[in-house]
C-alpha cells in the first residue's frame, strides 16, 4: 500500500511540475472577438499561417470592448475586431499605427419562427427594428459594448427608437450565451451570420431578416504601435497582419465554410 | 528512601502563590516547600485546587500573585495527566518523538539509537509487544503506562502525576502504582494528586491536604492518617467530605 501511495504521489507531483516547462516557441497573442472564435474561423486559417511562417497565433477571444482594453494595456501583439469606428479611434489615439480591412460578413436578425413582429416582411433593417419595438416583442441584446452590440445600438438609433422596457433584455453576454438565452426565451436577437450558422442550439429561432446594406459587418486588423508598447512582438505581428491581407490569407478566409456556407468574405485592398 | 540522584533533587518553593480566575480565587495564597526525594501526595475533595496547585508547581500556569521558585536550576520534570494525551502514531513513535525533542538521554541508555531507547522504555513498562500498535487503540491502563514510559525517557528529577489512575480498573491501577514506585526508586521525586485514600496510604511519604483552594496541612503521611490536624482532613479521611 505504501508503494502505491508513493507512486501516486510521485505521479501527481510529476504531473504538476511538468507543466512549468513551457516551450518558448515563436508566437503572438491575438486579441479577437468571440464571434470569430465561435465561428471556428481561426481553427481553419491559423494552421495555414503557422505552416507558412512557423509562427503560432494564440487567440484570446473577448468582447470588442475588452479587446481594445487589452490592446491599450499592451497585453496582446495584434488585434482583429469588427468595429471600424472604434478601430479608427484606436489609431487616432496612437495605440496602433495602421488599420486594414480584412474581411466582412453581415449581421442578421433571428427570432422565433412564429415571428410575432412580422419582420419577415420588412424591407429594411431599421423597419424590422421598429416593428420589434412597436410590438414590444422580447429582444435579447448582448449589452456588452462589443462590435455587434455597437452595431445593434446604431440600428436602434437609425430607427429612431430608444430601446427600453421589459421586452428589451440587456444580457451583458457574448454572442453564444446571448443566442442560448434568446433561444430559451423565444426572443429576437441581433447576431453576426458566422456565429449564427455555426451555432448548435437554435431551438425555435430562425433567421428572419438579412440583406440590408446597413447590416454590413467589417472586420479590421490593427498593427500596434512600437512606441506605445516596445516590448511587443512587432515583427511577428506584422507578418500576421500582412498575411491576413495577402493572397494566401484572403484565400484561406474565403475557403472557410460551415454547412456549405461561406461565413467571411475577404475584402482587403 | 534516600535519593540515588547525584546531585540531590532541587527543592521547590512556593511563596504566597495564589490563582485568581475571572474574579474567583481558586487558590488562596499558599506557601510551601518540597525538598528531598519524596513521594508527595496532594489530597482533597473535588474542586479543592489540587490539579491547579500541580500545574502551578510544574510551570504550566503562571500564578496571579506570588512566585514559584526552584532552588538552583529548574530540574528536568515531566507530567502525566489523568487522561493520557498520545499522538496519532504508534506507541513506539510516541516515544521516539520525545527523544527527538529532548536530547539528554538517560545515562543507562546513552549511545543507543532512538528506536533502541524507546524499545527499552517499552520493555521497562511491560509494553514491548505493543510497539507498532497505534497508541490510541491501547487500553486505558496501557496508554497510561505508555505516558509513563514517555516521561521516563525524559529523565525527570521530578514527576508530576494528576490523578493518573482515576479512570482505570484495579489491575491497571496496580501496574501504574508499581511504575510510580519504580520512578521513585531510581531517584525521581513524585508529586501526585489523588482522591483515593487507599492509594494515598499505599504510596505517600508526605501529604498535602487542600480544601476550597486552601492548603490546610503539609505533614508526613503517617502523622496525617493517624492524627490529622484539621477537622476537614478528619472528615475527609472518614470519607465524609466529598466536595
Amino acid at each position: 500500500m505504501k508503494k502505491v501511495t508513493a507512486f501516486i504521489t510521485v505521479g501527481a507531483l510529476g504531473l504538476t511540475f511538468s507543466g512549468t516547462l513551457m516551450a518558448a516557441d515563436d508566437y503572438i497573442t491575438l486579441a479577437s472577438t468571440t464571434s470569430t472564435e465561435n465561428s471556428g474561423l481561426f481553427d481553419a486559417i491559423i494552421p495555414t499561417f503557422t505552416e507558412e511562417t512557423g509562427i503560432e497565433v494564440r487567440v484570446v477571444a473577448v468582447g470588442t470592448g475588452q479587446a481594445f482594453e487589452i490592446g491599450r494595456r499592451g497585453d496582446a501583439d495584434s488585434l482583429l475586431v469588427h468595429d471600424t469606428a472604434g478601430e479608427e479611434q484606436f489609431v487616432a489615439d496612437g495605440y496602433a499605427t495602421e488599420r486594414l480591412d480584412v474581411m466582412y460578413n453581415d449581421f442578421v436578425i433571428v427570432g422565433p419562427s412564429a415571428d410575432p413582429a412580422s419582420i419577415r416582411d420588412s424591407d429594411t433593417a431599421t423597419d424590422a427594428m421598429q416593428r420589434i419595438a412597436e410590438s414590444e416583442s422580447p429582444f435579447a441584446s448582448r449589452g456588452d459594448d462589443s462590435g455587434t452590440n455597437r452595431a445593434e445600438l446604431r440600428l436602434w438609433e437609425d430607427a429612431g427608437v430608444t430601446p427600453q422596457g421589459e421586452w428589451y433584455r440587456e444580457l451583458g453576454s457574448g454572442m453564444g450565451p446571448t443566442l442560448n438565452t434568446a433561444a430559451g426565451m423565444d426572443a429576437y436577437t441581433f447576431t453576426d451570420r458566422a456565429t449564427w450558422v455555426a451555432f448548435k442550439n437554435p431551438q425555435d429561432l430562425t433567421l428572419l431578416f438579412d440583406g440590408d446594406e446597413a447590416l454590413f459587418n467589417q472586420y479590421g486588423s490593427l498593427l500596434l504601435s512600437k512606441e506605445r508598447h516596445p516590448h511587443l512582438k512587432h515583427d511577428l505581428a506584422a507578418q500576421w497582419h500582412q498575411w491576413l491581407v495577402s493572397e494566401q490569407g484572403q484565400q484561406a478566409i474565403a475557403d472557410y465554410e460551415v454547412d456549405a456556407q461561406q461565413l467571411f468574405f475577404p475584402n482587403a485592398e | 528512601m534516600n535519593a540515588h540522584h547525584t546531585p540531590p533533587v532541587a527543592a521547590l518553593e512556593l511563596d504566597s502563590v495564589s490563582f485568581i480566575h475571572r474574579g474567583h480565587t481558586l487558590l488562596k495564597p499558599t506557601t510551601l516547600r518540597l525538598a528531598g526525594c519524596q513521594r508527595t501526595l496532594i489530597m482533597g475533595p473535588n474542586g479543592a485546587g489540587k490539579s491547579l496547585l500541580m500545574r502551578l508547581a510544574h510551570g504550566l500556569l503562571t500564578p496571579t500573585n506570588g512566585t514559584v521558585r526552584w532552588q538552583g536550576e529548574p530540574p528536568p520534570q515531566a507530567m502525566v495527566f489523568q487522561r493520557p494525551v498520545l499522538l496519532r502514531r504508534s506507541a513506539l513513535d510516541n516515544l521516539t518523538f520525545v527523544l527527538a525533542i529532548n536530547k539528554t538521554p538517560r545515562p543507562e541508555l546513552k549511545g543507543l539509537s532512538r528506536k533502541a531507547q524507546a524499545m527499552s522504555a517499552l520493555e521497562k513498562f511491560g509494553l514491548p509487544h505493543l510497539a507498532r500498535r497505534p497508541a490510541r487503540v491501547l487500553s486505558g491502563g496501557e496508554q497510561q503506562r505508555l505516558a509513563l514510559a514517555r516521561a521516563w525517557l525524559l529523565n525527570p528529577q521530578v514527576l508530576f502525576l494528576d490523578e493518573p489512575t482515576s479512570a482505570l480498573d484495579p489491575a491497571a491501577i496496580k501496574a501504574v502504582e508499581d511504575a510510580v514506585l519504580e520512578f521513585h526508586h531510581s531517584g525521581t521525586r513524585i508529586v501526585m494528586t489523588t482522591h483515593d485514600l487507599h492509594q494515598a496510604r499505599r504510596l505517600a511519604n508526605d501529604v498535602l491536604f487542600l480544601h476550597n483552594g486552601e492548603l490546610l496541612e503539609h505533614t508526613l503521611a503517617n502523622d496525617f492518617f493517624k492524627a490529622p490536624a484539621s477537622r476537614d482532613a478528619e472528615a475527609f479521611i472518614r470519607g465524609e467530605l466529598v466536595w
Partner: protein
Amino acid sequence: MLTSDNAFSTALALILNMDDALISIVVLSLQVSLMAVFIASLMALPLGAALALWRFPGRNVVIVALNALMGLPPVVAGLCVYLLLSRAGPLGEWGLLFTPTAMVIAQVILVLPIIAALTRQQVEALHGEYAEQLNSLGLTRSRMIPTLLWDARFALLTVILAGFGRASAEVGAVMIVGGNIDGVTRVMTTSIVLETSKGNLPMALGLGIILLTLVTMINAIAHVIGETAKRRLG
C-alpha cells in the same frame, strides 16, 4: 435537443476517442489545479497552524478576514491578478498574463484562504486537547506546528481536497488571466463555457461529466489512502 442521453453518450464518445486536444485540456486542468493546491498548502498549512497557536492584537480580525476570503468570487480574484500581471500593471515585466502560471497564481489566491482557515480550526481544536501535555514535554509553539499538523493529517486531507475542489471547479479566474487560448490555457471549465457559447450543449455537458468523473476519482484515491492509513495507525 439536449437530453441526458446525448450528454452521456457524448461524454462516452469523447473519452473513447480521447483526441490529443482533449487530453491536453484534461492534463492542463490537472496541472493547474494540483499545482495551485500544492503551493497554497505549503503556505496555508503552517499559516493556519500559526494562527491557531499565537495570540496577538488583531487576531480575530485576521480570522474573520480569512474566513470571508473563502468566499472570494473567482472572477474578482481573476480580475485582481489580471490587473497585477497586465503589461500596464506593476508586475507586467514578468510577462505572465495569458499563461498557465497566471492561472496557478489566481487559483492559489482562491485556495489559500480555504486551507488556512480550515487548518486553523483543526489545529486550534487539537491544540486545546494537547497543549498542556506538549507544554509539559517542553515544546515551543514553533515546534508544535509540524507535530499538530501531522497529527491532524486525516482531517487536513479533507481540507486540502476541499481546496482542490474549489480550484478545479472555478472558471471565472482562469478565464480572465488565462484567456482560454486553444492549446495553451484552455482547461476543462473554460472549454465548457466555450462549447456552451457555441450552443454545443451536449459537448459542454459531456465535458462536464468528464470533469466530475476526474474530480471524483481523485477524491476516491485520497479517501482510500486516508482510510488505509487510518486503519494502520488509529
